[in-house]
């Protein structure tokens, strides 16, 4: 049987929206439980760190370029560069490294 593309689209949109909106609307009070508060406090840092490494090295054509950009971005961020600056300079770094003939 063939499926309707618009029903597919509706399912994707509905499931994705419900996942996001249910916690936002059902949890209206401040959570007082220390464990849950601490857990939720740590979640974003752990998620973002896990998503960045090693995925950043796998995203570029040359893993070395991704690795250099990774270290470069950490140094920039440590020195207090903004989101935009770190992001753009990381891209430029990958571009420059991959221009080098011996990287291929």
């Amino acid at each position, binding site marked *: 049987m*063939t*499926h309707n*593309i618009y029903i*597919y*689209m509706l*399912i*994707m*949109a509905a499931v*994705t*929206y419900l*996942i*996001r*909106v*249910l*916690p*936002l*609307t059902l*949890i209206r009070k*401040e*959570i007082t439980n*220390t464990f849950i*508060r*601490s*857990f*939720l*406090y*740590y*979640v*974003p*840092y*752990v*998620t*973002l*760190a*896990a*998503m*960045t490494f*090693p*995925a*950043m090295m796998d*995203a570029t054509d*040359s893993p070395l370029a991704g690795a250099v*950009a*990774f270290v470069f*971005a*950490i140094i920039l*961020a*440590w020195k207090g560069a*903004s*989101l935009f*600056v*770190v*992001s*753009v300079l*990381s*891209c430029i770094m*990958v*571009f420059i490294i*991959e*221009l080098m003939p011996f990287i291929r």
Partner: protein
Amino acid sequence: MQTNSQAFRKGIQHGVPIALGYFAVAFTLGIVAKKAGVTALQSFIVSATNSASAGEYVGFTLIGENAAYIELAIMTLVANARYLLLSCALSQKFSSDMRFIHRFIVGWFVTDEIFGISISVPGRLNPFYTYGAAAISVPAWSIGTYLGVVMGNVLPPNIVSALSVGLYGMFIAIIIPPSKRDKIIAMLVVISMVVSYIATRVTLFAAISPGTRTIFITVVISAVAAILFPRREKEAA
């Protein structure tokens, strides 16, 4: 106190790197959509209504395979389950006197990146900051997907390669400053990266989808950290 329009403008400003990264990633997503037989306009609508990279990737792939509706629903749930955690965290960030309708609107835009900058705003979150970031990045995401379908592989590969790290650069810019201030966060960031590396490279775990791996790593490490290093009320605010 920030006015709504100041918050909105700040959100747009901080949304620029997100938009650039989204554009590049969405472009590659569009190529996947095209392979699955989804048209440019349909993929634009999917991106505008989902704003989810892994979820959409899974969705397009399943559509290409003519999968059952229930299968698509379950896989969308699995691929996007981390948003459940992010939304739980974000629910604590709003002021209690904020109008309720904002929770429904913000819910549309809980992506990893928009969440990342929204949760790191000092103090309470003004929803207009999130709207500003979404106003520039969600269109970039949707248009990027559309163009990916239309133009396929027109962009030179070295440009695509360079653009593909933009998102990660931004993630780093979000997690490093708090790591500098707080040794526990710094330690968690390092541990998470090491565990993620092992999970990606060891064959046994590599078979698990990236989304599921991320959920697993996040839940385990955050839970252990919450037990070992509970935060007192003031700190966790």
